[in-house]
């Protein structure tokens, strides 16, 4: 049985799910990669998906006590390893 965390894009996280940032895809411009790293999206950092407003709107993530909204272009280029099961939205 493979216990390694499942790797996926940040965009694929569901609300309530937590994951660890593992790296970045090539499609994200370098300047934006630098900016999201400055925001705390560094490899090893724990990120929570808080909300998915729907209709393709940017999703809401919390990292290091701050809350950010990222659109698909950014969140799909941030790779994460899922570290906790989905917690029901309370």
């Amino acid at each position: 049985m493979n216990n390694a965390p499942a790797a996926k894009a940040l965009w694929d996280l569901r609300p309530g799910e937590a994951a660890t940032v593992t790296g970045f895809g090539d499609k994200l411009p370098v300047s934006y990669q630098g900016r999201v790293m400055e925001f705390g999206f560094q490899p090893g950092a724990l990120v929570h998906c808080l909300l998915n407003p729907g209709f393709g709107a940017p999703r809401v993530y919390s990292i290091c006590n701050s809350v950010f909204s990222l659109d698909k272009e950014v969140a799909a280029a941030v790779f994460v390893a899922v570290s906790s099961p989905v917690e029901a939205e309370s």
Partner: protein
Amino acid sequence: MKRVLLLGSPNSGKSSLFNRLTGLSQRVANYPGITVDVASGPMASLPDIELVDFPGTYSLEPISGEEAIAVNFLNEALADDNVSHVLCVADTTRLEKCMHFILQVIRECQHHQKPVTVLANMSDVIRDNQLTFDPVGLSDALGVPVIPVSARDSQGFAPIIECVADGATAQNTTDRNWREAPNEILRGTAQQLAAKFSPKGDVLINSQLRLDRFFLSTALGGLAFFFIMFLFFQSIFTWSAPVMDAVESLVSGLGQLVVPLIPNQIIADFVADALFGGVGAFLVFVPQIFVLTLVIGVMEDSGYLARAALICHRPLRVFGLTGKSFIPLLSGVACAIPAIYAARSVDSPRQRMMTYLAIPLMPCSARLPVYALLIATFIPKDTGLFGLVGWQGLALFCIYFFGMLVALLVTGLVSKASKNKQTEQPFVLELPPYRLPTAKPLLRNAWNRCQQFVTQAGKIILAVTMVVWVLGYFPNGGADLGQSWLGTLGHIVEPVFAPLGLDWRYGIAILTSFLAREVFVGTLGTIFGIEGSDENMLPLVDHIQASGLPLGSGIALLVFFAVALQCVSTVVILAREGSTRLALSMLLSYLVGAYLLSLMAFQIVSLLF
């Protein structure tokens, strides 16, 4: 005069600290990048030292035009010998977000041999949540003083004053040298320091999440957005109505009191027609500007505007804009000029250009006196739906909505015609914690906005009304306006406006409004003042109703003012921020568009009614 620079990332409480330290009314906004202009003022406790509030930026590696301006300005300022100290504000509750910026600032300050002090703001939140923060340890690690402060309750201000006043205590606390550290090293160090010194525990996210679950939910969030926008437009009329009535009575009463005391007939006529009739008619609408600015300020400071930007991002993308365009567009509801500056926060040059195209079509406060005048002329003050909806407010909502719709159609068409996805930039936006807005800075900001509006627009209106009065009064002493110089000029331009059902008086008012839209009201006030002779103290609405302006022409005027770019200042700023070609082509195309649309509106309304 010695200068102290105040730097910090957006939402770190920098502007609140600036207000507290200077006692000035710097804008306090709860949205990333709202501080576009640089404000400065003498420190309240050290009047010999000028505090300079820099635009908030997340990093000294800019990704937007706004950040590039801030960084360039910082580099120039650091090279200035008069700059004696740098204060770098950090949000202690979210050190991870600020630490890289702090290290970048320290590195630049070390390059320029300027002392730097870190102000660890929000210490009240740390205390209230019973968290711990080690400023001494962080100071040792950074090599510069770290002072815990609270902008909310002015805690920790004495050490700031000491630090700024006495250069000796502002020296580096250790021999840490960041001067040669590359960005990668700074980034890694920032992560380590943040992990070590950040207060452990969830400070605001849980309470914020509860509100976000409502405001950002698919169905309720959208409904809440429309409800808030609807309230916004209703409030402009309903909240300001009593003050507007009071100003109107005051202007009218003062005129009736002053004019009979003037012995010279020509001067008396001038004071009655140009001052009380022209400038007075414009002053009546100032309370609406106050309410408009106040309500936008409440939305900004509460943190809702950032959520609104998120909600609007996807729909705005369809029209070639981005969620980040929402703030400049809403600012454009107050005034196009700060809105054009605010568009610097839009990262993509193409989307910024689209934002420029949309801003002059947003229903700015200069249009408000014109809209309010025409709505008051044609729409009764009654309410419907059990008193919940005022028909005048609803009419204003409709004309505002029309302006916004035209803005989206224009950007949508231009975007489709020049589609280039490569120039679009990703959307990354910090959602600041929800906060209860503080009344004092909001009220002061609204007051300042009104003062600015009255002094800037008032000068133009006074000058124009004087010219209009002289042209309308002579050569026959106001006996027959149609035979005056103004009348002659008006009859020359009348054929242009006749297809809209407007006579020469409205033609003259439209021509003068190209200086600034609100001049339309002042000009009409002066014209009707001269024409009305003994009854010239009547409200302008009554004069227009008595003139027999048809409904179709009223609607045509509303449409014309919704689309035309009649503001010299906006054209100049567009030329400066965009290009002269862009500004001139917008001026011409919006003018032609406005004329054609208003012609259509006149024809349709005339057919129906």
